[in-house]
């Protein structure tokens, strides 16, 4: 079980590689330019079964997207801290 924080845009290879690292039970959180994954349908194909995905609402909204366009549930900064509390292993 790990929390994987992806902060770079989908156009960066390293972001895709980090999504591939996720294994069942892991949580992926998209922040900063990583939130652009939340509006691309093909992101769903990249995410393995059993991996939960969240999106930082503040970063999504600052880039012009509302919560209801996001393919994954949003969290705010408090929610991010909660994810940190629940996951000792953090990959970022």
């Amino acid at each position: 079980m790990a929390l994987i924080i992806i902060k770079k845009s989908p156009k960066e290879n390293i972001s895709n590689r980090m999504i591939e690292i996720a294994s069942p039970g892991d949580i992926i959180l998209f922040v900063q330019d990583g939130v652009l994954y939340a509006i691309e349908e093909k992101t769903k194909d990249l995410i393995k079964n059993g991996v939960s995905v969240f999106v930082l609402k503040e970063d999504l909204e600052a880039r012009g997207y509302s919560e209801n366009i996001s393919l994954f549930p949003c969290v705010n900064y408090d929610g991010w801290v909660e994810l940190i509390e629940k996951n000792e292993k953090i990959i970022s």
Partner: protein
Amino acid sequence: MKKVLFVVYQSPSGSIWVNEALRCAFGMYGEDLEPSILFMEDAVVAVNKNTHPEKLGCLSLSMSFKYLERYGTPIYVVKEDLEKRKIKEEDIEPTWKAQIITNDELSSFIHSFDRIIFF
């Protein structure tokens, strides 16, 4: 007269480059220069009327709007980059008066300038 193009490719909420390109473009008018700005890749996020870096405490894009209106600096955006980021024409903030060009037109468009500076 020389035509100058500033090309921005990074997201305006994640980085300073959109604001810096705007600032540079507005500064060109002191010389016999004709500046334009092209947004491609993640930078197209800038033209969405709902994009507000100030929500993160960062500098707002709207601080450039009065200069944009005063100078009428041409703003170009790549169609395919908009589509990939799900930004529809009606989402575009009218103040930008953004002109949409296709990826196919990009090469000849960029070659039509004398100086091309990527940010």
